[in-house]
């Protein structure tokens, strides 16, 4: 089985998977997660999940989790294309509001975790 890594800024995803998977947890923004993924992709990582979240916009949800496969010998051009397009989209939307009610923040974490769980069920 290929070696995979989770890149996330969602504490709920980190909490659930850090014992069983390789998790790169960032105390950063949605865009920071995409930039971290770009660094990995340029070193041969392959995206396994889409860098944009469902129909939630990058300026709505603060949380993002991504799954990448590591240590490919050649750079994956599809992954580069996808991450660059997604970063451009995220930058276009700008960042989410800094002040956010706790309930709302928790619900965004829950949605991101739920979406990610459906992927982890498959690998």
């Amino acid at each position, binding site marked *: 089985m290929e070696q995979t890594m989770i890149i996330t800024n969602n504490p709920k995803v980190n909490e659930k998977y850090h014992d069983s998977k390789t998790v790169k947890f960032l105390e950063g923004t949605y865009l920071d997660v995409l930039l971290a993924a770009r660094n990995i992709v340029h070193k041969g990582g392959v995206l396994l999940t889409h860098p944009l979240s469902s129909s939630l916009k990058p300026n709505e949800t603060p949380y993002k989790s991504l799954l990448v496969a590591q240590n490919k010998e050649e750079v994956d051009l599809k992954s580069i294309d996808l991450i660059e397009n997604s970063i451009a989209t995220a930058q276009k939307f700008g960042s989410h*509001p800094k002040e956010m009610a706790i309930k709302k923040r928790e619900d965004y974490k829950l949605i991101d975790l739920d979406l990610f769980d*459906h992927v982890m069920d498959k690998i």
Partner: protein
Amino acid sequence: MRLELNYITINEMQFSSMSKIHNQTLLINKKELEDLILKDEHIQSVELDIARPGESVRITPVKDVLEPRIKEQSSSGVFPGVISGVETVGSGRTNVLKGVAVVTSGRIVGFQEGIIDMSGEGAKYTPFSETVNLVMTCHCHDSIKAHEHEKAVRYAGLRAAEYLGKLSIGIEGDSLETYETLPLLQSVSHYPELPKVAYVQMLQSQGLLHDTYVYGVDAKHILPTLLYPTELMDGAIISGNCVSACDKNTTYHHQNNCVIQDLFKQHGKEINFVGVVITNENVYLADKERSSDWTAKLVEYLGVDGVIISQEGFGNPDTDLIMNCRKIESKGIDTVIITDEYAGRDGASQSLADAHQSADAVVTGGNANELIVLDPMKKTIGHIEYVEKIAGGFNGNINENGSIVVELQAIIGSTNELGFGKLSAKDI
């Protein structure tokens, strides 16, 4: 497969001591309907309101919109696999209460979406300002999980739509429309001179608040499959999708899929409309590859000359849309895609998050980032405090005179990607 839609026009809705249809008025026994909804142990209370076209009423946040229907003298029922048995729908006679809708509302998560204004500027952007709406605001127990909460409200809407639909049993409608699709080989031989066209409908299916159900099956777990068009017109697909308000397909949109209706209008004249392929929009990239491969394979197998593809949602699903388009075009089949745009408030930015040169015929539902000013409303059904927090709203967007500035994406159905809306490059 042949479906008759028996349209029963409803112009007015009132609460009454007895539920029935009388003189094009839908009378509803509030207590009886409340009791039906409260049979769900998760729902603590429900408020029922009526919102009519032209009234100074704002409904928010809206979860789903449904059209009351019932199947008469049939072994199958409305919303199969969910509140009816799994028997195949799309044939026989279905009564449609035309002019009314059930609108579900209620707090599920801390961010919520969707406004329907029944009058003023906002009313111009949603088709549900023109229906007489029964608004159901469901309140669930505090301890309920978000998944259960969404499901409880989804089922409440379906049960109410069926309850109201049953009132039409035995009533002869104002008009009857018949739709029929022949088995593929018969259809092809019937119109040998006409170009064969299929419709690919993409369904949002990514997870919590992003789900769609096909005969009760969570669409994220399906492989792309074939349906008769009339199955979609008859409740085979329902919405569990809460985002985004502007470009999600509510259950009402599925029941009244205007791509299918328009393809039927041209069927036997300019085209031969042979059928529908449904596919999903998932998170895992391997799923996207698999589903788009299968979609292209199925339309190739149908032997069609052209395909209409409709998307649901924005961003991540743009990738599914482009994959479907590119792979179908690579088989020598022409495509037209229907999407919407997030092109910035000035409309100058890149519209989609993905693109390909094969996507050379595109219909847009509009720019969801466009700003509009909503007039003050005298009455709000739901929770107005959400308006500055929903997608398309922003802090400080409520003016002193009560008007609200939002992006179009806050309005239910405003940039719908089936084309079920009013935006156009010209006034229509």
